[in-house]
């Protein structure tokens, strides 16, 4: 009787355990692998390493949202003919070239409605794979340069232009990184609105997602912005963006990260994600769900000789170290600010001095 009651009681109480789910980020990691690939009718497109979201693919028409300054795109159309390729979120001075094998295919710039958007026209030979190459002129240059980082705009999208205006004024910024929480709920309308507001920026923003992008569904972000986990190299710096929106990194991504860390060993390496592995204010734990996982990741980053980490989620500015790596939390995009910290809306600028120095991380106040 006691045994039966005990078993029944335990069974009845097991229901809450189902609330915890271990694979919360797996679907997004799997979706990462599909970003940048599409086919429509007789046309196929593949963006190397998934570094752009395919916003539109129709006969003769391709639209991309870039996640990196340089892209390599393979486009095939069995029918061939004229194509318009629109790339949003690109560096204003980047150029698009096209080749079939060793043979150059002429590309014509036909429209530049915004500083970070260009439409190109080219003619595709029938059945041939055309490699489109988007390259900024300074991709391999080894001179001092600057990028910006911000996060956590959320419901303050109506005021985001203040930030963009300051960012446009900041001298020498080549692009910005967004460490998540672009929107308050991640709905299609909000993602669309965020991209629309970005049109005033003179530089592109390469983003990963935050927990607020999961407020509606977790499969929309990829449609608009592309991968949550990716990396790219620009001017001697490797940038690795990780999806920690669910307070964890998916096991699939740890596999990718191993390779990315190995490839970035000889470069300056900047890693950005939304939730920090460890909150410097531990009692708040605006960080990974598991401190064991946090330390595993930080040990990997430190062993991989990562030079700098940036996080969002906490609506303030913190400078600290994790596993000996300089770390910054910059969540000053406008969402409910942390009170009593005297920070407010802000973004940071990072001055890079190749081949291997971060000269300065500076806070730029917006209010």
């Amino acid at each position: 009787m006691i045994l039966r009651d005990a078993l029944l009681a335990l069974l009845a109480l097991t229901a809450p355990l189902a609330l915890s789910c271990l694979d919360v980020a797996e679907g997004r990691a799997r979706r990462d692998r599909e970003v940048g690939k599409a086919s429509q009718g007789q046309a196929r497109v593949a963006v190397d390493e998934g570094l752009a979201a395919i916003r539109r693919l129709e006969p003769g028409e391709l639209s991309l949202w870039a996640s990196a300054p340089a892209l390599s795109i393979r486009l095939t159309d069995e029918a061939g003919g004229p194509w318009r390729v629109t790339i949003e979120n690109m560096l204003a001075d980047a150029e698009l070239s096209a080749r079939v094998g060793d043979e150059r295919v002429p590309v014509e710039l036909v429209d530049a409605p915004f500083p970070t958007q260009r439409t190109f026209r080219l003619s595709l030979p029938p059945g041939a794979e055309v490699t489109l190459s988007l390259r900024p002129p300074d991709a391999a240059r080894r001179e001092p340069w600057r990028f910006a980082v911000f996060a956590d705009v959320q419901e303050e999208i109506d005021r985001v232009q203040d930030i963009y205006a300051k960012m446009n004024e900041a001298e020498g910024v080549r692009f910005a990184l967004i460490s998540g929480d672009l929107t308050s709920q991640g709905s299609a309308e909000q993602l669309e609105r965020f991209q629309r507001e970005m049109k005033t920026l003179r530089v592109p923003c390469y983003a990963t997602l935050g927990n607020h992008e999961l407020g509606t569904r977790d499969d929309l972000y990829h449609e608009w912005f592309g991968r949550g986990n990716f990396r790219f190299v620009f001017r001697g710096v490797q940038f690795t963006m990780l999806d920690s929106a669910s307070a964890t990194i998916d096991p699939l991504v740890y596999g990718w990260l191993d390779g990315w860390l190995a490839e970035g060993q000889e470069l300056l390496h900047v890693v950005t994600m939304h939730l920090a592995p460890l909150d410097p204010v531990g009692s708040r734990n605006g960080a990974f769900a598991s401190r064991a996982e946090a330390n595993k990741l930080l040990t990997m980053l430190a062993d991989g000789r990562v030079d700098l980490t940036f996080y969002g989620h906490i609506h303030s500015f913190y400078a600290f170290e994790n596993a000996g790596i300089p770390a910054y939390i910059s969540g000053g995009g406008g969402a409910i600010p942390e009170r009593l910290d005297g920070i407010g809306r802000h973004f940071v600028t990072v001055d890079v001095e190749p081949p291997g120095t971060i000269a300065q991380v500076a806070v730029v106040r917006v209010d």
Partner: protein
Amino acid sequence: MTAPAQADTGEGEGAPGSPAVAAPGSPAMAAPGEPPATAAPARKDVSTGRRALAAAGAVFPGVVAHGTGHLILGESRTGWTLLALEGAGAGLAVGGVAGAAVSGASRRVIAPIVLASVTGVGLFGISLLADLYGVLAPEGGTGSPPSSLPWVETQLGLAYVHDPTFAYRTFLVPGMDLRLSSLRLSGSGWFGLNDDNARLRAEAAHRFIGPGTPDGPSAADGSFLELEGALTHHRYTSDDFSITTGEVTLQGRLDLAHIGRTLRGSFAEMGWGIAIEGYRNGGRPFEGNELLIPHFAFGMYLGHAGYPRGEAKVVYGHRHDGYAGGAKIPGLGSGVPGHLGLQGRLYASPRWGLLADVQAGSAYVGRLSLLFRPGDSP
């Protein structure tokens, strides 16, 4: 006869359990001012239909208005008390969330906000489960609390941990509790069998009130209040880091017979604590952080006299370290919540028992241990 001791120290929930063995009719079994629980006290005659209605009412609208089951059952005082507990819990939880929102989770005020919120959620959950227990439990409750605890209790168990981030899966888990009057010393270890991972934990606790060793003063029931200090060293050798934690927790248990006779045999636990952690990543210098470790539980004693007997409880632990870590939740909420767990102890004889424990957070953790109280223990 004695009750189980504290040796569930594996994941550091504290919350020492202790079902036990009070002689029938002893004060330990009685709600204050009421006859002993084991005597199966007279209870208002309630028809089967009304009891079924009360059980349904405890689910709905009881999930919203805690105590509804008792109100339907005619146990108005208990029903209103549970409703008041729910109100207090909801107030604290909502107030905590509002405080976090207003302050932007400011570092200057977040600690009391987290403690208040967890306490609020605890009161909310405990009042809900207590209402269900009170309308479903048999006359006299499911069991009675212990009157004393053993001098020594040892455990040896196997644990399985499924954490997609780590390679370890199986563990050998030995542990021991030593008691001297109101003092408890506990030690436990988790040793990975398929991975180089080990967690060592030592606890010392002073019990201000509640059941102690048989040579101490007799406890009125299973309720207790104690201060626990613990030191934990967790080596993730294959992942090249370690976490060392020092912590202190004030924790207690209240037998819910104090609230109403229908709640005899059930108990609630609360604990508030803080931990300081040191991380060593590879050969790099230590880095520190802190962690709030409040917890709460609702449970029930199993068995009034003789064997088998024990206790079972559902536990929320706010800690984010250990094997379970904090919960991963789809959507917006990951990061802040801790983990849920179930723990049961069942003794087949004065010497031998079983401890079963499952937790769900960033990992699923299951443990089954054999408990042994040496012969010269009471």
